[in-house]
């Protein structure tokens, strides 16, 4: 099981909003930062982060641990993450169930894994190593995917549940990613959520997606879609009101608009938990 910090509803700290965040003190509970963008010890990003951290809890979300890659774990990246974490004292550290490099070259993408025992054993070893190095549990997030591998022997939710059981890591459930992948691979999104063990989920992500031909793409460039709000309500009913992040990265609107989306998430979570009580 994992400890879930009761920090509420957050938004991403994005460069375009730095000045607004510091000047307007927006009504959000916490900020998420992409760890990779704050690893240089000096410079403007780290200065803004320090100022934000004085006022809000911060969670660190990474995109480059490459937990499922066959390439060796990047120990320098892990050292930089550890140093950042010691300075920021984040409420949560997370990365993705994916791989992103091969032969030392980076794709800068969250590439999907086959759901096989080999991949599970490999990823488990690396999650254990990361947690050992950081001396804390991490959350591992489900990614959106556009391909499914013919050799997979289990569904994604089973893979995630097994990973959590083997490594004692937590799970970051990206509700939009579940929705996108469910569409792309024709599985039932609610059944997926219902198969994830309660007590392992430490954070939700919500984001907008777009349609590209027959597939949905996880583009983070729209408001959260209505169907994803419904799925979020289902997730809150099952897992409780765990910390929830609104992710908005492209076609970024005003800070106020992102805050509004976060307040909607808070309202949805409050309504669901009130009914449940």
């Amino acid at each position, binding site marked *: 099981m994992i400890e879930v910090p009761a920090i509420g509803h957050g938004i991403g700290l994005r460069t375009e909003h730095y000045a607004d965040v510091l000047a307007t003190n927006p009504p959000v509970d916490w900020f998420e930062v992409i760890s*990779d*963008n704050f*690893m*240089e*010890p*000096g*410079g*403007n*990003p780290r*200065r803004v982060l320090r100022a934000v951290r004085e006022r809000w809890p911060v969670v660190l979300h990474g995109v*480059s641990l*490459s937990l499922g*890659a*066959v390439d060796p774990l*990047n120990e320098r*990246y892990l050292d930089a993450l550890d140093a950042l974490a010691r300075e920021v004292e984040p409420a949560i550290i997370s990365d993705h169930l994916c*791989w*992103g*490099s*091969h*032969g*030392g*070259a*980076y*794709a*800068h*993408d969250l*590439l999907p*894994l*086959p*759901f*096989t*025992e*080999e*991949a599970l054993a*490999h990823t488990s070893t690396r999650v254990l190593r990361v947690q050992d190095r950081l001396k804390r549990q991490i959350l591992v997030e489900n990614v959106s995917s*556009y*391909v*499914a*591998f*013919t*050799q*997979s*022997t*289990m*569904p994604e939710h089973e893979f995630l549940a097994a990973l959590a059981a083997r490594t004692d890591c937590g799970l970051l459930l990206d509700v939009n990613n579940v929705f996108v992948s469910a569409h792309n691979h*024709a599985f039932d999104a609610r059944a997926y959520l219902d198969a994830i063990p309660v007590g392992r989920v430490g954070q939700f992500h919500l984001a907008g997606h777009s349609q*590209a*031909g*027959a*597939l949905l*793409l996880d583009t983070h460039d729209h408001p959260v879609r209505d169907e994803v709000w419904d799925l979020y309500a289902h997730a809150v009913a099952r897992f409780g009101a765990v910390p929830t992040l609104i992710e908005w990265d492209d076609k970024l609107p005003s800070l106020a608009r992102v805050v509004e989306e976060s307040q909607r998430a808070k309202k949805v979570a409050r309504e669901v938990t009130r009914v449940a009580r």
Partner: protein
Amino acid sequence: MSRADGPTLAELQRRFFELVTGPEDVAKELVTRGLSEGAVADIIAGDARASAVERLDVYANMYFFRILDVLREDYPKLLAVVGDDAFHDLATDYLQAHPSRHPSLRFVGAALPTFVATRARERPWLGALAALEWARVDVFDRADAAPLTRDALATAAPEDFAALPLVPVPASALVPATWNIEEIWRALEDGRAYDPPTAPAAPGHAILIWRRGVTVHHRAVASAERRALELLLGHTTFGALCAALGDEVDSEEEAAARAVEFLGHWLADELLAAPE
């Protein structure tokens, strides 16, 4: 669910990565590599909505366009000079020669200036323009430091002046420039027409790039100041600076006067860091 056999995880990642990061879309990449569509269908399940190749192509497109976007942001002037189509082709070739070797996208364009310099034979100054753009990106991210002020300097006793440490702010760099590209940079910044340089710059020409607050500045420096700046960027003292300048002028007084003149410029630029 399907079968447990098939390629190892390492083999699957190799095949996936090669097809996704190739210079062409996945279908053409398969042809180039002498592979059939079966090589993809073997590992990826397609369906009536999208074939295995089409699905893998989503990743190939995201790979290229994500990096292209970063390069366009890092090199807006180079992009403006060569145009969208040529920049697209340049990025394609660049990624084949220099795949990203750092987990952060921030460094993906680091080798583009050198790459451009080796290709742009008709416009040999493009490499220098790209080098200036990259230095500006790099300096923007460097650490902050409080600048040394005239007032702080005034408190130093005259007898301590020779040993006075001169330390640059971390957000500073000196880029050798074989071409005068500051004019072109400025014209592009202001949206004006420009005349491409026709002859290389004078020997020793360089560009100083540094950050004040959140704004990156640059200026051209002539060879005398360049030598002084090289000393400064390696960390020096006022006495060592005077001694080095003494090799170029007739008297110690003249060397000291020149050192004071440079010091004045650097203080005004906020190029010097205050002692910690």
